[in-house]
């Protein structure tokens, strides 16, 4: 097959596209996820699909991959209409996908995960895992990374797991590759490696759909960019003939302020002091390896870092959900090392968990119960052992109004709410009252722009009334925009503290990637300036 970069969009419109999606429409109750979307993909092309969370990118790709059935529309491969009723149909036609949430089975080995569904067989019954391992090693070697095929996936870092996902595609020799937000969990350098890999694959004649909402990345990697918003195709651009600002406007639908005004911080007393904190993960490995930090009232400390560097464990230890192996945590001067979640909560600590459906909400319970999840046992919501349903309902109505949670009633189960409203529900619970410290773990993950803006505004407000805020986010932009100070977490340690207003994004990226970087790294003790 002839290959090469199509120089322009016109050149990309070869007579027979590798893949063509025509008029794809998908409706869910109350929402049209895809509204007559057209998309084509040329051989050897990297085609970016740009859109906000919830714009319908993932739905479109699920349709392509047979995980969802379109209500209307047609899919053509090499000019021939095809019916894709399930992933096996897609795979049979050379389509492979890396999903936003990894589709890996933690208890199985790397080799088992890679061969699953396309097993290398020793005979008609038994697997040939040795041969599979050999081929995996070879493939990995070819693209310059190492992976132990016998390692259990659950023991791998997130970055390594991403590689397993890509190996799965390579192992199947896919011709159409779909990557859904593949860089969300990667460091800039890992991202760069993946980009090199993708370009090589494209050169090899493979066609790639690259889904993202990160403008810079899309501009860097794509040959062609299709922007979708609210289920519709808004426009198509060539990177050379557009810029981030234009794309952002296409994506969001209005001119956006790429930065919000966070105002000045006025640090007060030390609210949280962490000394030499060490924490183990579920498997017993020490993932927080000596963290020292201090946060004062009225300031936001953002922790930047690639997911899986111990941030989740650090946060869980701070709010009492995880045992502290050693070290000291004190809140406003009071030692709370190893205290229970309730003790910490009662010290006016608010917590927005990274996994809202796991720690944040009890989905089958009504909003009322979820809003009093941490205060159900004390007045006014309970007197002794007896709950006061009236007080709970009244408070719930207030908070739902105040935090603009869209719901038909405070008594519906939390699972009936959209993701954004679920997150607002948590915020409504955790931001209420006189907060000493707010611990925010990925507070806007997976939310639409409106919700993100709303939550960011509330965070700034809380800081302005004197709360200390610890913000952990895998979105470097979010950390950069909100933080008064930035700490970079790398392999269980805070490797640098930077000023939030002067920090350079590329320097932070380098620190995230390598744990060391450029000059100007501030003192690593973590004390507030």
């Amino acid at each position, binding site marked *: 097959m002839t290959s090469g970069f199509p120089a322009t969009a016109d050149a990309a419109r070869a007579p027979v596209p590798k893949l063509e999606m025509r008029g794809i429409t998908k409706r*869910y109750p109350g929402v049209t*996820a895809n509204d007559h979307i057209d998309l084509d993909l040329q051989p050897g092309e990297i085609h970016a699909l740009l859109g906000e969370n919830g714009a319908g990118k993932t*739905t479109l790709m*699920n349709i392509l*991959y047979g*995980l*969802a*059935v379109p209500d209307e529309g047609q899919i053509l491969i090499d000019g021939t209409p095809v019916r894709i009723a*399930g*992933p*096996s149909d*897609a*795979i*049979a036609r050379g389509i492979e*996908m890396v*999903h936003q949430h*990894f*589709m*890996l*089975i*933690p*208890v*199985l080995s790397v080799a*088992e995960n890679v*061969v*699953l*569904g*396309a*097993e290398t*067989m020793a005979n008609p*019954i*038994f*697997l040939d895992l040795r041969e599979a391992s050999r081929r995996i090693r070879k493939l990995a070697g070819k693209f310059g990374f190492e992976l132990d095929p016998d390692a259990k996936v659950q023991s791998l870092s997130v970055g390594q797991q991403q590689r397993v996902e890509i190996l*799965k595609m390579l192992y199947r020799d896919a011709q159409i590759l779909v990557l859904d937000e593949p860089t969300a969990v990667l460091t800039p350098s890992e991202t760069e490696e993946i980009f090199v890999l993708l370009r090589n694959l494209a050169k090899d004649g493979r066609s790639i759909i690259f889904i993202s909402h990160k403008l810079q990345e899309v501009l860097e990697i794509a040959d062609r960019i299709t922007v979708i918003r609210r289920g519709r195709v808004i426009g198509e651009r060539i990177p050379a003939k557009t810029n981030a600002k234009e794309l952002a406007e296409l994506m969001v639908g209005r001119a956006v302020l790429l930065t919000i005004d966070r105002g000045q911080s006025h640090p007060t007393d030390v609210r949280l002091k962490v000394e030499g904190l060490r924490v183990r993960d579920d498997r017993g490995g020490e993932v927080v390896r000596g963290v020292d930090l201090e946060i004062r009232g009225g300031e936001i400390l953002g922790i930047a870092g690639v997911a899986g560097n111990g941030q989740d464990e650090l946060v869980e230890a701070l709010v009492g959900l995880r045992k502290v192996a050693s070290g000291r945590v004190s809140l406003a001067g009071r030692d709370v090392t190893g205290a229970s979640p309730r003790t910490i909560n009662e010290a006016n600590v608010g917590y927005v968990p990274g996994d809202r459906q796991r720690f944040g909400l009890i989905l089958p319970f009504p909003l009322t119960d979820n809003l009093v999840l941490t205060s159900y046992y004390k007045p006014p919501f309970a007197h002794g052992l007896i709950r006061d349903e009236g007080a709970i309902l009244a408070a719930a109505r207030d908070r739902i109004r105040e935090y603009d949670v869209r719901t038909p009633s405070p008594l519906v189960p939390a699972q009936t709410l959209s993701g954004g409203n679920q997150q607002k529900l948590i915020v409504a619970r955790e931001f209420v009252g006189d907060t000493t410290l707010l611990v925010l773990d990925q507070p806007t993950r997976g939310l639409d722009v409106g919700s993100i803006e709303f939550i960011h505004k509330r965070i700034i407000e809380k800081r302005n009334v004197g709360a200390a805020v610890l913000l952990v986010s895998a979105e470097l932009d979010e950390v950069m925009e909100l933080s008064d100070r930035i700490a970079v977490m790398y392999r269980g340690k805070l490797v640098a503290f930077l000023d939030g207003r002067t920090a350079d994004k590329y320097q932070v990226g380098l620190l995230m990637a390598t744990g060391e970087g450029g000059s100007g790294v501030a003192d690593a003790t973590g004390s507030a300036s």
Partner: protein
Amino acid sequence: MDALLHALNGIPVLGLVFQFVEYFITSLPFTAHVAVQLAVPICLAALCGVMCERSGVVNIGLEGIMLTCAFTGWFAGAVVTGVLGPGTPTPIFGFTVPLLLALVAAILAGMLLSLLHAWLSISVRADQIISGAIINIAAIGLTGYMNTLLSTQTLAATSNFSALRIPAAVAGFPVVGWLINALFGQGPIGIATVLIVIIFQILLFRSRWGLRTRSVGEHPRAAETVGIDVIRLRYRNVVMSGALAALGGAYLSMEATNAFQAGMTQGRGFIGLAAMIVGRWTPVGAFGAALLFASSQAISQSISVSPPPGDLGTLLSHVPTQFFDALPYLITIVVLAGLIGRSIAPAADGRPYQRESAS
């Protein structure tokens, strides 16, 4: 109580331990054979559970499937014998035409009942515990009902599978003779169980089917994204697993005895469920757990049948006999709580899989 204390005071503990070890070894040839017999139906039930739950479908209906199949096998045998005559048993295993047809009927019944469970838990996405409970209650009800009705009729007597007779020379062979006798001095279902355990274990961890089964039990969506038809695989496995529990039921009414009794499973399906958990959802583990349970039962029985001599016997004679009834259950608890602890079910166990995502 005083006597017990007295006995305890008078005897050096170490001596007792030696005596027990000696007794254990001398009675091993007898207890091992019995233990395998007791373990077979429990193990088959547990294997059914392993196959279901490895695919992500909880099955607490083991007891009911066994009971139904015990009934079906026995009844079908009687009907076929009535039509075709009893037939001549083969010298080894005592196969007859009616008996084999009855076995087929029992297995079909097991698969049919499992199909119901599969439909309820996979297609209907009903609560799998409730579905299993339905099977248990329905089985107790329907077999009891039919048994009562049928016992006013005179049914043709059927033979049952007979055990392989290990020649005394082999059975008496030093060191391993007892083991050969224990494992292979069994009927066809008993021997098949040992083989099934080994084959199942190898297939589960070495074959394509096994890999896919484990993947749909752990993370069905991931399995689906690599082109595995989760629904079909779950259906196939649950229905197949019915054949295993069916063998367990057939063992009771067609190999261990040749008659059906209302409620003759006597909780073996539930013990099988426990064996599956204690065995951590692996075939060999389940067999081991079933064997552990059965051995402690066999040793308890051995102590009552042929009490050890000497001080140990004196001591044991002061222990209430009920203690020995409870011993297998106590040992299971101790092993689970003390040695195994938390056993973790396949991650998607009991979660119905819905193909099309909602968002």
